């Protein structure tokens, strides 16, 4: 069975693994022990001890925080119950004018701000840009991902989660 060391997975996640090695990993049969090594790499990276249950973005994790399961930024800021849309607890910058769109697209033709805006969802504590939506004005904010956390741990990983009092 294919398997890689935690160091290799750490370099892969950080984007620092040399390309020939990365390419071999992409072409090979997948390593079935990846998930827990990956979580362990991420757990070493974050500065807090709540166990990560599932990464849901580049710096965004569902973790067990006491008896709650919450979505947390890498900086430690909690967006609350993981079953709710974390974006609703984020900070937002909306680019809906030529001037603000031009900051991101200095040399290109721009969309029509009457038809389309850019919404940046930001951690209110550390300022990390977690997600960008390009949407028509008035379009509801998208709830990107509602994982079946219990089903994943129970049926796919074979390690059922302890029942949680709050947050699923």
């Amino acid at each position, binding site marked *: 069975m294919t398997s890689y060391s935690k160091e290799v997975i750490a370099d892969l996640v950080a984007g620092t693994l040399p390309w020939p090695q990365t390419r071999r990993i992409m072409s090979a049969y*997948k390593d079935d022990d990846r998930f827990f090594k990956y979580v362990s790499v991420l757990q070493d990276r974050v500065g807090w001890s709540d166990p990560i249950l*599932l990464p*849901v973005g580049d710096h965004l994790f569902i973790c067990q925080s006491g008896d709650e399961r919450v979505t947390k930024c890498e900086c430690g800021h909690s967006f609350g119950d993981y079953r709710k849309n974390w974006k609703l607890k984020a*900070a937002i910058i909306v680019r809906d004018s030529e001037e603000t769109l031009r900051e991101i697209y200095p040399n290109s*033709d721009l969309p029509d701000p009457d*038809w389309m805006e850019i919404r*940046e969802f930001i951690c209110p504590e550390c300022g990390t840009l977690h997600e960008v939506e390009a949407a028509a004005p008035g379009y509801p904010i998208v709830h990107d991902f509602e994982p079946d956390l219990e089903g994943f741990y129970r049926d796919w990983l074979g390690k059922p989660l302890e029942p949680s009092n709050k947050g699923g």
Partner: protein
Amino acid sequence: MLDKPASALRIRERLLESERLMDETGCYDGITELKLRNQDPLKFETLHTKLRAYCVSAREMARRISASPGVREVGEMVVAIYTPEGDAIALSNGIMVHVHTMSRFIKWMIRNGYEENPQIRDGDIFANNDAFIGTVQVPDVMDVVPIFHSGKLVGWAGAVCHELEAGGITPGGDVALAQERFTEGLFVCAEKVGENDELRRDYVIRCERNLRMPIYWVLDEKAKVASCIDMRESVKALIDEIGLDYWMQVSKEFIEEGRRAQLARTRQLTVPGIYRGHTFYGHVTAGKPGYQPLGDPDWLYNMPIEMEITTDGKIVMDFEGTQPWGYHSMNCTPAGMDGGMFVTLTQHMNFEGLVNDGAWMATELKLPKGTWTNPDNEMVATATSWALLLPAYGVFQRLLSRSFIARGFVEEAFVGQVNSPMIEMGGTSQYGTPFGMAHFECAAAGSGALAIKDGLDTAYVGWNPESDMGNIEIWEQNMPMLYIGRSIVPNSGGAGKYRGGCSFLSTWLVSKTDHLRLVTSEHSSRVFDNGGLCGGYPAPTCQKHRAVRKSNIFELAENGAPLAHHTGTNPYRSELEVRLEGEHVTLEGPYITAPHKTGDVFTHSYNGGGGYGDVLERDPVKTAWDVENGFLTKEAAEGTFGIVLDEDEEGFPVANLDATKRHRAEMRARRLAHAKPVSEWIARERERVKAADFAPEVRKMYVSAIKLSPRFTKDFSTFWDVDAKSTFGVE
């Protein structure tokens, strides 16, 4: 009609039986156990690989027969081998989107009694390019031949080429002005076009009389027939070797194995749950010549997609909430939607090459009737359905990628494909003859970023993983235009920790013609039809066309003065305006104007891919390299990415790490100062929503979605705490 005896093949009954067995057992054709695989796995795998080799080899051989640069240069062709019921067993590389659309075509003939009339016999050739029967658009013409062994139908061989000229109301294949089926071009609706391994002369004459450039279509037909015969003979020789009974069983086991492999792959690579995303598409035709007033000239489509991954590994994609079909060329049939699903799965989850229709069977598409994904009117045009398909399946790629990131397979996460607008042309060629052609260099757009590296520059499109822009010299042989530039478009990838792949722009001099019609089928600049992921931005919207009529380029050349080779990086004044005199044109797509003449200059830009991750985390050293090589501008490096670049003694950019750190800290502080709590934004925005204070096209989009979708109505009403119907005046 004379009474004829019922077909001896009884293939229709077999198809129904196969479907019944699948319903009853959940396994393909009732194959609940992979007996032959268990008996001798090595033989099983060897045979499957052999079939794949037959396909790859037949396609390569056929490409040498074709006269079309689309097929010869860019590889716009795919071939596959099918069961008697029309399910794909093995396929070649190439435009794999059509493997499943051909399956639909074969099944359509079986369901419609083709075994009785026009009959299915050894040596017959059937062709189709009707999307409601089974293809994506008119230029995707498919040919299939039955494979008989010992008097029994044992399978089919099929091939598809994308034709560069389809004889529609505008030249090329992706017919811009088609607003109904009747202007899309030459239709071949599941016809028997050949017998005894030979194309019928009357069919060839019909092609010759109805196409602007029949040499492409007719030689592609011969290429396809040759590849089908090649595969057929290979399969017959294989059956001689392994026996007919073994073949009939093993071909089905390959498909059931494919289905199981897809489910297992989903369980291995993803996380179960519900994933959501959306994208948009804007179309602008008001005042453009040739459009009939059949619907609103300008419109905006939303494409929300909900993907569910169930704990048994099934992927279900639901398009509820999207827009109705319209009088434009971008509608899609379920066959096209299936094809999009198939080619995406093939690239992202089944990359070892032994994929077949089994993978598709492990998925489900929910396509609401009456929408552009499943029109309830078969007269609609689908000539440019890729315009909506590509953005939609770009969303699918991002949804899948989020699942890969959650599971830890970050190397597979990919921000996805983008539209790559095609330029098409016709009129009088440089040889003084009538011509027509779709220019297929669009098959090399920028890809979305990966979660561990930048996207591919000028090297990816969703429909054909073997991306290729073709050689300039070959294209110049086929059109009355000469390249005076083909260059990377700086900043054309979406910004992010990893940027999207960049696109390129071609600049042409119209040469040796007094009548060149240039047409782009689609693509306004109004909205982003691609996206970023995990903090990455979308790639820029589709760029406008810039042209110069009656330019002074020959005079400049004679005087040895500098020419314009690209449009430059000033969106308000292009290099064409700086360097050339003449009538300057800046036009948002679609580009449909009066014919061009010798001396005119024309530019066309393709699209880059979306970015991944927070821009403020991008590597400054890599960025300096990007600026040096023209993938980013210094302006973007500093203003967008927060990277301060100095120059070394030779004038090359180098990253100033300390200044970058300071600049980024300021940018981050500015972000936090400008950002508002989402709850505040919602409260303010709600007032605008209550007043339906939007542009007419945006309002109309909401009205259409609300009329078609109770779920969209409920979600909209809940999110904004309004009554969506009364807000938009929907009864």
